[in-house]
């Protein structure tokens, strides 16, 4: 109960709020918001309390992993999967992030979604998401993880398309779902592969998909580890928005902003990172896959950062920033520094949630205006939002002592230290870009002169306490969250790494220390330089960026249009698939062969046979008696002749 309670509370919330939504729709009068708040926010907070109480022993002591078997899911012959939960260090970290940030965002939503007619439905979805995410991180086997994986995918789809009356938003939801299917397919193949390799070796009670069983028998998987992990990584590419499957995430910004913060920044998109951390014993056996993961991660980080430089939609900038930061995490995973990746996952959850919610606060105040060209100087109207946003920006751009500095620097250092120089150089470059686009966003939104219409300016207001309090909490976390992993040379102690105990870490020597100092100086200096440039560009000399854009037309357009990736996908994948579906698969196979020949053909044949048989049924008794006699004669002849 200790473990299942964590996910049952939000599930109860989803059921209750779903009922409220249905009842409200039936009675044409929504259920009072207070009820929805009590259950929709109260139960996630209860889940948080549950998580803390389950996690505390892990933080202050080192107990055995906690296991709980909910039910026997399926048993077919030797194959067996349980609905089991597992709590160890990784999942403690994850459930604390999920329920912690999740509860805050639920709270924030009570302000943000206040006037939405589908209030109860929104909370039902959000609670359901929380449940699924908790299943994902608590499941003790691959299938439970997959259940959560699909559950969060479903909720993501439902929430992106929450305002489905707008066809563009509905299409964004659909896109997210379809792109994720590609990744899920890879994940499934990985699962099947594991089953096929481990099935001959399971005993009576073991499940081939159980993580602990897999770890004990990792040797059996070693031969195919490269391909298996590659398939798992395809799943991660989809869920965590990496090249080439990242295209859904920027579109996913169509959903309500708290959703973007919770699902598309802090929790769901990090599922791929969690998966690699959970299966690190398997990825350790596949150095080629790891190399691949690192390269994909780094390229994604860089590539997304360049796009973010020129976007004008406040949420789009943050979306590409998220893709970019996820790339960092995959870089960390790929070089084998799993705990660093988890560290960055945590700090990113704090500051990116804060940024998104800050953006939400702005959008809320500006009546759904999202273009930063029409903002500016908002600091005066909404000081809390502005300063928390600045703190989060300091964190993401890597300025000490804010959280992002520690985690990002650790990634860069580990990358160099493990000898991936090219990736490291790209990483530093990306850090500079990150600092630039984030400060550009901050300056354009909150500083300088206000470019909104005077009418709009009159309505701008600070958000209610339910929203600002959450911003303050998250800003605090963004400020101090990094102290969990202070590097050795700064006289600190890396609590998180020691506690997680994931992967191998190279020894710390004088050379490494020098390298680390140098990197720190470089990245902090670079970040400050970028910030200054952004300051000059967007506050002091606004004509500069315009001139720059004019003289580098080509690359500016390329970035503004996101490298035309969507267009390329549309031309090379979407349209061909559509066309072949219409003409070949639908027209020929489905309509003609399946419908025409198989379905209607067999139907017509059977109907014909039926009419033949019915013809004997003429209604005349003497005919019937005659048939009796015929049958009897036939039978007797058979008996005699035989």
């Amino acid at each position, binding site marked *: 109960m200790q473990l299942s309670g964590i996910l049952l509370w939000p599930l109860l919330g989803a059921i209750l709020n779903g009922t409220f939504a249905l009842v409200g729709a039936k009675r044409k009068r929504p259920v009072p918001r207070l009820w929805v708040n009590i259950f929709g926010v109260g139960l996630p907070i209860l889940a948080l309390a549950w998580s803390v109480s389950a996690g505390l022993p892990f933080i202050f002591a080192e107990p055995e992993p906690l296991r709980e078997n909910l039910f026997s899911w399926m048993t077919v012959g030797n194959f067996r999967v349980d609905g089991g939960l597992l709590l160890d260090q990784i999942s403690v970290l994850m459930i604390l992030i999920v329920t912690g940030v999740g509860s805050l965002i639920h709270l924030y939503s009570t302000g943000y979604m206040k006037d939405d007619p589908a209030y109860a439905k929104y909370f039902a979805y959000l609670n359901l998401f929380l449940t699924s995410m908790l299943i994902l991180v608590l499941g003790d086997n691959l299938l439970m993880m997959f259940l959560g994986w699909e559950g969060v995918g479903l909720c993501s789809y439902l929430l992106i398309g929450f305002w489905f009356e707008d066809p563009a938003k509905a299409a964004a939801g659909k896109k997210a779902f379809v792109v994720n299917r590609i990744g899920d397919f890879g994940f499934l193949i990985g699962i099947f592969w594991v089953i096929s390799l481990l099935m001959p070796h399971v005993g009576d009670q073991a499940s081939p998909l159980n993580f602990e069983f897999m770890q004990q028998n990792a040797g059996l998987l070693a031969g195919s580890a490269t391909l298996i992990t590659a398939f798992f990584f395809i799943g991660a590419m989809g869920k965590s928005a990496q090249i080439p499957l990242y295209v859904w995430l920027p579109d996913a910004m169509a959903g309500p902003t708290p959703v973007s913060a919770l699902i598309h920044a802090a929790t769901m998109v990090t599922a791929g990172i969690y998966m690699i951390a959970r299966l690190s014993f398997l990825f350790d056996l596949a150095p080629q896959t790891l190399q691949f993961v690192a390269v994909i991660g780094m390229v994604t980080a860089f590539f997304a950062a360049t796009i973010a430089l020129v976007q004008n939609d406040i949420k789009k900038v943050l979306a590409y920033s998220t893709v970019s930061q996820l790339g960092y995490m995959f870089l960390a995973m790929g070089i084998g520094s799993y705990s660093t990746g988890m560290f960055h996952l945590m700090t990113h959850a704090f500051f990116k949630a804060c940024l998104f919610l800050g953006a939400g606060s702005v959008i809320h105040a500006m009546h759904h205006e999202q273009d930063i060209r029409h903002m500016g100087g908002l600091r005066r109207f909404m000081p809390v939002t502005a300063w928390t946003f600045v703190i989060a920006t300091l964190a993401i751009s890597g300025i000490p002592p804010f959280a992002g500095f520690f985690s990002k620097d650790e990634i860069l250092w580990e990358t160099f230290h493990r000898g991936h120089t090219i990736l490291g150089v790209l990483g530093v470059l990306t850090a500079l870009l990150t600092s630039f686009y984030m400060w550009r966003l901050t300056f354009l939104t909150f500083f300088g002169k206000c470019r909104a219409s005077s009418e709009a300016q009159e309505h701008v207001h600070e958000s209610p306490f339910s929203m600002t309090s959450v911003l303050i909490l998250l800003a605090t976390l963004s400020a101090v969250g990094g102290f969990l992993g202070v590097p050795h040379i700064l006289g600190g102690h890396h609590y998180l790494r020691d506690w997680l105990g994931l992967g191998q870490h190279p020894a710390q020597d004088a050379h490494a220390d020098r390298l680390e100092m140098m990197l720190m100086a470089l990245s902090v200096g670079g970040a400050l330089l970028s910030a200054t440039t952004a300051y000059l560009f967007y506050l002091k000399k606004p004509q500069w960026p315009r001139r720059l854009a004019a003289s580098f037309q080509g690359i500016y357009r390329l970035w503004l249009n996101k490298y035309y990736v969507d267009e390329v996908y549309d031309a090379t994948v979407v349209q061909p698939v559509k066309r072949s579906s219409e003409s070949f698969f639908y027209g020929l196979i489905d309509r003609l062969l399946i419908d025409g020949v198989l379905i209607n053909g067999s*139907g017509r044949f*059977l*109907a014909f*046979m*039926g*009419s*033949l*048989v*019915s013809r*004997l*049924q003429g*209604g005349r*008794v003497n*005919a*019937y*008696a005659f*048939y*009796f006699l*015929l*049958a*009897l004669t036939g*039978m*007797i002849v058979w*008996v*005699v002749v*035989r």
Partner: protein
Amino acid sequence: MKPDALPLIHTFWPLLLIGVGAFASLITSVWGSVRSFRVTGLLAFGIFLGAAYGFATLDPVAHSLAGGILRADGLGYFLSFLICLIGAVTVVFSFNYWENLSEPVQEVLPLILFAALGMVLMVLTTHLLTLVLALELMSLSLYVLVGSRRADPKSSEAAIKYFLLGSVAAAFLLFGISFLYGATGQMDLSLMGQQALSPDKALLFQVGVLLLLIGFAFKVAAVPFHFWAPDVYEGSPAPVTGFMAAGVKVAAFGAWLRLLHVLVSWEFLELRTLLVILSLLTMFVGNLAALRQRSLKRIMAYSSVAHAGYLLLGLATLVEGAVFLEAGMGVILFYLGTYGLLTLGVFAMLTLFSSKGKEISKLDDLKGLGYTNPVFAAALTVFLISLAGIPPTAGFVAKYFLFARAIETGLIWPAILGILTSAVSLYYYLGPVVQMYFHDPVGEKSMPAATLGMKVLVSFLVLGAFYLGLFPGKYLTWSNGIRLEASRSTPILSGMPQTRP
């Protein structure tokens, strides 16, 4: 009292109860008023439940009376139990159907009791003479019941047809029995089995067996002896059709089981081949002919034919050379119970639909019922899809066990063909469902109020359909434990108080 009267009462009291009750109901229904109809109905209902309880709790002792004229064994008790339940359900139907008339047809209830008495006797005997008498008692009562809607010429037509063809079948049966007697000099099946057969009488014997089998094939509506079924099912009042479809099938298959048990010992009969051929014919014709029907009653008639085909396949699995695989009977018994339950369910709906003496069973009449009468439509849907064999309902489990058994015993191709025809059956079972849910209601639909008993009954039947589908274990264990010969160790309902002498 004569010395062996006591064990007679102990062993056969439920049977006597039905017999006495049948005569008593004649007396109570003499007044011809609505009240007397009610009293008779309560009496009949009580008798059926009491007898069912008796058959379920009695310990099968294999008492055989006067050379097998009556025989008390596990199979007989089990089937009698089913028959009594079917009878009880039919009584509730009849209440709903006839009570609303200004002048209820009084003789209906006594006739149901007499027919049930015939059925019970049929499954409680191995003596051919008793068998014929029982069969005729059942048949004659049914002929009258079929024609009990006197104002409706269709009802009379059905009764005449049933009577004429039934007489032909009875003639075959009697001929068969006389041939068998001629060949063996015995009237009791259990004694006949111990008889050595002189070779010159083999042909006589074989033809006798064929005639006997045809007699029962007629009763269960096996092809090509099924022609009466659609016309009779359509013409008779809905409660009677339900009673006929469920009850006669149980009784006739019970008799068939007994015959097979004895006849397998003569290997030259090739009963297995014969049964498989009959079964395939029946499955195909039943399922195919049902496709074109536009009346739910006719659909149910062909459905009854089709299910007889599946049951015949079940019978074929019991014959293995000269051995009768008694353990396989459980599958057939399970199937019989399930089929009875579901068929009665459909006819409960038809009864509700056809009250006030007006029969309505055209598919077009069901249009839009899913919206005007959601509960009715939902229940009918459950019964129909269960008959089609869709999980998680009883029909699926029954078919699954039956076909699985067929495959186990090597009847792979017949099983595959059977499953294919079962797939075809989905079309006509879903036809009414499509009418109810995918068409707009036409005109004013007034569903006559159902009596409380009817509501309770339908709820029970729906629950039963799901219960047997989800938790078949208990009932299956019970039916699997049924044996033909004495099985003193297993009383039918374990845990029940046993009325043992």
